[in-house]
């Protein structure tokens, strides 16, 4: 905190008297030593202290906050590997050298990049360095008595002076104190040279709230870090009628933090009984084919509990102890049977197809039959819930299974499964395969409706036996979620206190002279506090009224011609 800061903002100076005093010492040093010797004379310890003070200053916090905002921007403009790896790869492919440079600089992993991390770590170090001394100062302030009444109150806000003939100073002071107490001021009555005064203070909660807010932010960060070390998340795909039991081998993909322990995974299983989807139908309002609802009925069993039927929907996850399950995707699983030319069934059952992202749910079919003889076989094509085949090729017009059909081509050759490179089950490399030709020599496009079978010239048969749907779930758990939520809520609570509790001081002084009590009231705002002036005046008028036959302060003079020429009621407010 520099000299400039503290001198321009009295609020801040008084909030942090320690820091203020120290900054005075540091910034006065160069003047004493001369500019030349300023830095070397600090020595190592001094230099470190100097840097520490710089780091924990308000300006630094401000600059770091702005840097944080700016550094986050590329994270929204470039695809992020952790959010969308496919898009990231595509961007890299399309942008060649430029993409590589960006990649090396971390633009595809902004939020875990060294520069982004450096900014927020510095910010939080600065934050902690800022909080710790302020907590000390604040605790002292909470125990301290309200500061003594200034000798001249005239310069302060809402200054009001009332002369009350025949009043008892002690009674006035006592009722002032009680009234302030009721309004939740901390008060202190002080004897003065020729009278007494109450000094009152309210709004220390403002600083408490501010500290709470900043501490809770550290809490959020710590819990987020804890969560990323211990949480896990995985994807599963389940076909209607099939089951899932929670173990690592059952997941399509799985990520977990460094401290994740597999034995912590809760033991539960479920069966997907039914999956339903509804879409905007022609004639209804909205875009035709846009989804309206997805529902998955599951039968869940957890140890020690009876089986339960539950419906998982978007926004309605299934919570079991230690994990939650979210419905995030769905698609079709046509039941396909393939026999090779020798008559052996080489593939059978429901096959998960991958929707291509169009409204009609045109889905990709990839079926690999490595055991087919004489050659390995792949069946590749599309599943079409409401299909048509025209000059644009096979595609689906509507997402519901109104007219389901398969459009397939059979390939034979080497599936490349022996190369040792792990393969994606939903992709096939066609370069080492050839399409089975029909009688005219062209590759055959097989179009199948449910219940149909097709036999190729070489004796391979493909049949479409039935249709099921599948649902894709994410199963995740983060043990620190509750901590993050609690910290965040504490932070807003503190923030609200810190922004909206006015911090102020108020003084009431009564002097007695010639049987007349002279009442003075004034206040000092220590935050934006537009109501202070009216509050001070209201207090003055209450006190004067209560002790003078309930008359407002102006009336005090009118009934007493002896009062001074100004009308016995002088008002003056400074600033």
């Amino acid at each position: 905190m520099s000299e400039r800061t503290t001198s321009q903002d009295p609020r801040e100076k008084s909030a942090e008297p320690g820091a203020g005093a120290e900054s005075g010492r540091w910034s006065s040093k160069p003047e004493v030593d001369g500019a030349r010797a300023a830095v070397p004379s600090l020595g190592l310890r001094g230099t470190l202290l100097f840097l520490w003070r710089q780091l924990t200053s308000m300006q630094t916090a401000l600059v770091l906050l702005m840097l944080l905002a700016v550094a986050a921007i590329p994270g929204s403009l470039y695809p992020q590997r952790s959010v969308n790896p496919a898009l990231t790869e595509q961007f890299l492919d399309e942008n060649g050298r430029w993409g590589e440079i960006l990649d090396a600089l971390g633009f595809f992993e902004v939020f875990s990049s060294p520069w982004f991390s450096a900014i927020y770590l510095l910010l939080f170090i600065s934050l902690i360095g800022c909080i710790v001394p302020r907590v000390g100062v604040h605790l002292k302030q909470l125990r301290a008595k309200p500061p003594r009444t200034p000798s001249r109150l005239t310069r302060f806000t809402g200054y009001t002076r009332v002369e009350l003939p025949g009043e008892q100073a002690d009674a006035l002071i006592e009722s002032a104190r009680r009234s302030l107490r009721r309004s939740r001021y901390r008060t202190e009555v002080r004897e003065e040279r020729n009278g007494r005064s109450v000094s009152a203070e309210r709004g220390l909660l403002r600083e408490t709230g501010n500290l709470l807010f900043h501490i809770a932010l550290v809490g959020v960060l710590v819990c987020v870090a804890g969560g990323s070390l211990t949480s896990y998340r995985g994807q599963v795909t389940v076909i209607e009628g099939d089951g899932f039991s929670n173990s690592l081998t059952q997941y399509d993909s799985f990520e977990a933090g460094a401290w994740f322990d597999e034995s912590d995974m809760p033991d539960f299983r479920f069966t997907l009984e039914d999956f339903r989807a509804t879409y905007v139908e022609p004639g209804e309002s909205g875009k035709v084919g846009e989804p309206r609802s997805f529902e998955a009925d599951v039968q869940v069993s957890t140890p020690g509990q009876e089986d339960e039927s539950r419906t998982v929907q978007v926004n309605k996850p299934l919570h079991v102890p230690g994990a939650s399950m979210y419905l995030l995707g769905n698609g079709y699983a046509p039941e396909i049977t393939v026999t090779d030319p020798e008559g052996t069934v080489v593939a059978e059952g429901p096959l998960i197809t991958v929707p291509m992202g169009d409204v009609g749910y045109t889905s990709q079919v990839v079926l690999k039959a490595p055991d087919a003889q004489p050659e390995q076989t792949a069946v590749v094509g599309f599943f079409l819930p409401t299909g048509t085949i025209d000059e644009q090729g096979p595609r689906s017009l509507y997402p519901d299974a109104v007219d389901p059909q398969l459009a397939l081509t059979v390939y034979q050759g080497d599936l490349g499964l022996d190369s040792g490179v792990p393969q994606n089950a939903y992709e096939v490399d066609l370069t080492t395969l050839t399409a089975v030709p029909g009688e005219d020599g062209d590759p055959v496009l097989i179009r199948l409706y449910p219940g149909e079978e097709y036999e190729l010239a070489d004796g391979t048969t493909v049949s479409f036996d039935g249709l099921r749907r599948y649902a894709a779930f994410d199963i995740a758990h983060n043990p620190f979620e509750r901590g993050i939520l609690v910290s965040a809520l504490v932070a807003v609570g503190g923030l609200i206190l810190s922004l909206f509790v006015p911090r102020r001081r108020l003084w009431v002084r009564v002097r007695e002279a010639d049987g007349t009590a002279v009442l003075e009231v004034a206040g000092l705002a220590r935050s934006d506090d537009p109501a202070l002036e009216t509050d001070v005046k209201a207090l003055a008028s209450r006190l004067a009224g209560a002790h003078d036959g309930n008359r407002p302060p102006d009336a005090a003079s009118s009934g007493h011609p002896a009062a001074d020429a100004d009308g016995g009621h002088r008002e003056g407010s400074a600033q």
Partner: protein
Amino acid sequence: MINQQLAEISNLALVVTIVLYVLALIGFGADLASSSQRRSDARLAARERQEAEQEAQPATVGAAAGHTSGTTTGGSPDSADAKGVADAASAGDVTDPAGAEHVAAGTMTAQRFAFVLTSAATVLHLAGVITRALATQRVPWANMYEFATTSTAIVMVAFLAFSIRRTELRALGTFVVGPVLLVLLLAQTFWIVPAAELTPSLQNSHWIYIHIGVAILATALSILGAVVASLQLLQAKHERTLAERAATEDFPEHWGRFGHVLDRLPSSSSLESLSFRIHSLAFVCWTFTLIFGAIWAREAWGRFWGWDPKEVWTFIIWVIYAAYLHARATGGFRGSRAAGLALAGFVAVIFNYTIVNTVINGLHSYSGL
């Protein structure tokens, strides 16, 4: 089920609203222009009186300047006198903030006309929003179009609420109705979508009421805060210019085209504290938007935070406004620099609302386009 008839009524109401806002804007503009005219007339008159005074010397000229001492002894009037004249000339504007000086009460001035139109338009605007809600039987904020119409309705209601009591704020009409009209036009031409039921990602969740409701409030407060912060910056510049010119000129010209409007507005320091109050509320609303959004994201996607572009930008908005609040407490940043940060925050709000919704693709299917 969608009630198509109501949906059409809603559309119609909003189109008529736009027309009324256009007329109101013309009214407010005419008011600005005429008060500019009145002001320069007054200044000219003051100068003429001053010159007359000088020519008439050494005759008694007190009458010309009204309340000023008028006893000019030297060749040039002392500057205190000159200021007195200028002040007298501007008093009319200042004391009658409704802009109705020289006009009997009850007469239709441009501003009164504009204000009445604005009120009618706002009622219609609200009716449009409400009929949309009734037509779809849900909250009217499920896509960009509805978000825009609803949040601008809130801005207008807030403006009317402020300016019904404090008539001097009506002079701000142009600066409020203008942006609102712009947003409505964008909504009506680019973002409009037929009234429809919710997509699954928005269904089954009370968070659509809470999270988006708070986001709309936060956005409306950011818009108002930005209007006040811009006026604060203009006013500060105006005050500086006036102070400089007062030192060298007898009849300080007002700064820029809007100098006369700024004359009627509160000082830059009270605008600053108003801006602070609005932005504190906005910041609290943005904080809740973030937290509720995170809770909803966890319910819907199984993670509370995923650096989706929408999340990134809400984070950016939040951080910039936090920086603004810090700047107010940091020596050397109070006042205009802090206001600059508040405006930077508003730029981020706009970016989040337009570019992020339409150009950058993320999980938030919210735009509905």
